[in-house]
């Protein structure tokens, strides 16, 4: 495709998509490097045990370096010429319909490439230390590489079918990694749960693709977005809702949120990379990428906002009640992604902020998870925060890096989360006062539960189990944590001040006019920070002033409900699983007894009938003779009668 034939789609401006040339023609290599690593490690078997993990890390590192080179090159282009298209080969040509394996590198995917390869690379390095003693670590690194490749494919794809390929690929990697220690039956169940719930979301993705082909005759971004404005509003609403369904599955949003908590069964680096920084944000990517569709459908955007608000509150409430440090962080992830989805639902006013929060969240949440992993590592696998306490002395680096992430997530200026969350809340307030209030409330609760995690883990008195000797983690683990902590501190300021990031994304997602607010911006900021501080204060009163009991108190109705994730599993079980099991059992019975019963019954009927008929064959010669005679007489009689 040449620039002359560029496709203009977004209403506010357009995006020129040029044929990738020069260094940009190496886009495919971004994916190929980690994919190659996965293949070598999986096919090479035990022979690659010695060098496999290092190779995997190296390949992801090379991907990052390449991504960075591309980024620098892209910065050199003017803002309107930063999108490149690379078509590798035709995948499925049928008549007029055709799917190409092709990549689209533009500012949006560039941002993701940097996030994925950077955090992915750090997590690889971290895993070198974290998984050092695991006999199966080669397989672990192979899966991690597979994940990075699939995730890059997801964000670089130039058509929805290819997005779907990456989408399923990350789902598979997630399944394999959640179930990495599947010698524990419940971990295997958690992996299954994640995969199946994701597949429910994939129904949305599949149907969206079918609807796109039926409507536009293509699933390429360029074609779909070019035709979006001519499609009927019903089609656009359906597309929006289907894509939202897909996003809820992958991003653990309501109503498909239940798998994320259990997904913490995976090794902690996995939780950091897949279930915090990258994969779970794929839903946000999908919505933002599909902005020409959502721009044209108010109904779809409203649904997105609703899902975002509900999930951000849901996750925040659940986070307050969890004692398992990873589950508390998982609930927090769910809630933070709720913010992003909410922002994405605000339309052009929010797309950029959704991605902005996604970036900062990728850093600070990955940092928090790696910190949690470091703590778990030091505490011999203990995950219950009630058995922690006073770890800041023995794990100073972990404490400081975790603290940086903590300050970032609760939105204390000038840490990264402050900038990104602040923007989302402002945009939400401009859209609707109620959505804004919900978002501010969520910020307060976030501050509360994150402070709770912080205080229970690093402050207070020691509540360690006997024989536990916490220690600081090795360099391979702390260095990634330090790097991510630096990101948690500065990234927000770097990206937001001067509107750098918003400007960077503008060619892709368009821009919104300045929103008018009844109250001045600094007042809103002050309110948000104040609400957050109130949350911290309550947590201080509850978990630092008073000793933390080893056994969780029964708590109020709300606490118990939140501890049970508001009975999400019970609801899913009673609504889907049990009826499904009964239906399955009934159908098996039906198949064996009714359908096969009919088949065997008709066989038995014929067999039985034959047995009766056989009785006529007595074996007595004379009775046969009698029959013959009778028959002959009948024939003769008939002949005579006819003659008459």
């Amino acid at each position, binding site marked *: 495709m040449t620039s002359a034939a560029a496709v203009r789609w977004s209403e506010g401006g357009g995006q020129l998509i040029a044929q990738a040339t020069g260094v940009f023609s190496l886009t495919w290599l971004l994916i190929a490097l980690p994919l190659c690593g996965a293949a070598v490690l999986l096919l090479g078997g035990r022979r690659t045990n010695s060098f496999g993990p290092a190779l995997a890390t190296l390949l992801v590192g090379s991907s990052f370096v390449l991504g960075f080179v591309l980024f620098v090159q892209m910065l050199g282009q003017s803002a309107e010429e930063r999108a490149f298209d690379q078509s590798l080969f035709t*995948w499925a040509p049928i008549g007029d319909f055709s799917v*190409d394996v092709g990549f689209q590198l533009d500012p949006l995917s560039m941002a993701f490439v940097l996030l994925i390869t950077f955090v992915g690379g750090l997590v690889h390095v971290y895993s070198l230390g974290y998984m050092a003693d695991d006999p199966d670590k080669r397989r672990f690194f192979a899966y991690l590489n597979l994940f990075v490749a699939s995730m890059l494919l997801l964000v670089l794809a130039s058509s929805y079918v290819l997005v779907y390929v990456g989408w399923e690929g990350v789902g598979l990697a997630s399944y394999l990694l959640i179930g990495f220690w599947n*010698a524990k*039956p419940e971990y295997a169940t958690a992996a299954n749960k994640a995969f199946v719930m994701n597949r429910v979301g994939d129904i949305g993705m*599949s*149907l969206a693709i079918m609807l796109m082909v039926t409507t*536009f005759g293509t699933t390429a971004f360029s*074609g779909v977005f070019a035709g979006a404005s001519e499609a009927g509003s019903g089609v656009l609403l359906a597309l929006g809702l289907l894509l939202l369904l897909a996003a809820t599955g992958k991003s653990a949003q309501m109503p498909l949120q239940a798998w994320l908590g259990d997904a913490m069964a995976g090794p902690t680096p996995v939780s950091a990379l897949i279930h915090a920084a990258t994969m779970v944000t794929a839903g946000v990517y999908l919505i933002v990428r599909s902005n020409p569709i959502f721009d044209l459908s108010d109904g779809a955007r409203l649904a997105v906002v609703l899902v975002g608000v509900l999930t951000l509150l849901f996750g925040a409430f659940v986070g307050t009640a969890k004692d398992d440090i990873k589950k508390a962080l998982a609930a927090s992830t769910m809630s933070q992604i709720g913010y992003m989805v909410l922002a994405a639902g605000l339309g052009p006013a929010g797309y950029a902020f959704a991605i902005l929060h996604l970036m900062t969240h990728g850093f600070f949440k990955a940092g928090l998870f790696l910190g949690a992993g470091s703590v778990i590592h030091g505490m011999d696998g203990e995950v219950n925060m009630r058995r922690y306490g006073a770890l800041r002395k023995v794990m100073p680096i972990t404490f400081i890096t975790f603290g940086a992430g903590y300050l970032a997530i609760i939105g204390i200026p000038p840490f990264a989360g402050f900038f990104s969350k602040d923007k989302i809340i402002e945009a939400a307030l401009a859209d609707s006062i109620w959505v804004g209030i919900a978002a501010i409330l969520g910020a307060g609760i976030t501050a509360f539960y994150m402070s709770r995690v912080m205080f229970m883990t690093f402050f207070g008195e020691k509540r360690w189990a006997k024989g536990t000797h916490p220690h600081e983690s090795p360099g391979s683990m702390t260095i990634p944590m330090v790097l991510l902590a630096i990101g948690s501190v500065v990234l927000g300021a770097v990206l937001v001040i001067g509107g750098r990031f918003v400007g960077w994304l503008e060619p892709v997602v368009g821009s919104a006019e300045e929103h008018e607010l009844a109250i001045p911006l600094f007042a809103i900021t002050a309110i948000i920070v104040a609400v957050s501080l109130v949350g911290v204060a309550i947590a201080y009163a509850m978990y630092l002033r008073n000793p933390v009991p080893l056994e969780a108190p029964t708590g109020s109705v709300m606490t118990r409900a939140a501890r049970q994730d508001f009975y999400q599993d019970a609801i899913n079980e009673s609504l889907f699983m049990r009826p499904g099991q009964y239906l399955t059992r009934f159908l098996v019975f039906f198949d064996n007894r009714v359908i096969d019963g009919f088949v065997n019954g008709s066989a038995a009927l014929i067999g039985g009938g034959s047995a009766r008929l056989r009785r006529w064959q007595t074996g007595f010669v004379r009775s046969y003779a009698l029959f013959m005679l009778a028959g002959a007489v009948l024939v003769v009689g008939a002949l005579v009668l006819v003659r008459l």
Partner: protein
Amino acid sequence: MNDFPALTTLGVLPFVGALVVAALPRGRELLAKQITLAVTLVMLALTVAMAFAFEPNAAEPFQFVEKTPWIEQFGISYAVGVDGIALVLIALAVSLAPVVILAGWNDADDNEQHRPQTYFALLLALLGCIVYVFAATDLFLFYVAFEVMLLPVYFLIGMFGRGQRTYAAVKFLLYSLFGGLLLLAALIGLYVISVQELGTGTFDWTLLAGMPIDPDTQKILFAGFFFAFAIKAPMVPLHTWLPDAAASATPATSTLLVGVLDKVATFAMLRLVIPIFPDASEWAAPFVVTLAVISIIYGALVAIGQTDMYRLIAYTSVSHFGFIILGIFAFTEIGGSGSVVYMVAHGLSTAALFIVAGFLVKRRGSSLIPSFGGVQRVAPILAGFFLFGGLASLAMPGMASFVGELTVLIGSYQRWPMAAAIAVIGIVLSSLYVLLMYQRVATGPATENVKGMRDVSPRELVAFAPIIALTIAVGVFPKPVFDVVNPAIERTYSFLHVEPVEPDVPVTDGEGTK
């Protein structure tokens, strides 16, 4: 095209091989296996050569055509030839043959009554019948091959099976004969009409396809054909022979039976039913599509509830055949081509599952899922193969089945949006039956049952590797298959009078439709 009778060679070679193998005396079992493998490899080489010589966009419907009068009084001739669809399916059969023979190298050794020579001779004979079914362009030759094909399977199940093998073999035979009888009746009816319409009676496809037939007569004949193929396919509620047959047969037999032989039905729907009875096909399409969707959901749900691995795989096939038939009766090029790719993909994924299940059952001595547990702990590569087969079955992107499933769904959505929307639920159910089985068999701590289980042997590794390679090759780069299949599908649907499906909002600037 040169004059070398490639298809006859391909079809007769296995029969010759079968005679040679069957004639080998006791004590020469190894030689029998080696000859069998060699024959299949020669066939594979020949098929590859044919694939390269094949011209996808040729004007005539069939290539490698051979035609000799056989029973001239009834217009019957020995006529063979392949279009893109038949070529792809023959290639599938011939590729799977060496794989299953290698994978089931020792499957017949433990049999007390019958010699391995018989087993391999029967496999070869079955392969020959399969080649003829796909290659026949004379309906009578097709019918003969279609019926004769039952005998090797009957003996393979009845002589070399396990469990209730006699019951399963008889059930299979009766079901198939019943369908075959209806097919024969309809075939005679078709012959009578050809006498009226064309002056001389004929069984030649090129003359019968597109022949004007009174719509009501079409419906009756359609019913006869369709019933026979619905049994073979198998569609709910005519499917119950399959689980029994699969549970009793050896993995090699099951693979050829489910993975290839049953494709005859879906192949015949494309080759015979739609071109010869276009009006009736259009008339019956809503009904067929409904049955197909029921098969998809029903097969998957019943699969979830199975406790026997072989039966479970058989029920997944019922579900997958639903997808294939849905694609065929979508009457869109995407659906039709997709269904052919799905046939190939299903052959590969079923082969993968049956073969790995065979490895597992061989080691454990039981095919019940609860009798396993924690296989991944003791035999990681074997468990990895099992997971691969499962993922191929649930249509993981990057594998062949994804290409088929996606295109079938897209194609059927264009014509039957509701049916496709319901069929999509199948993707959730497929993940359930695959992952639950994998979880029960392979994950968790190693149980007493699987302690000391060997991991894959080099022979098993060699047997399984081609399946992995083919599955991924077709999944990543299916274009060659589409290129071969598309013209044949286009020709098939050109007999119909349905409106082609056009996008509602065609992207006009050309560049967008990439």
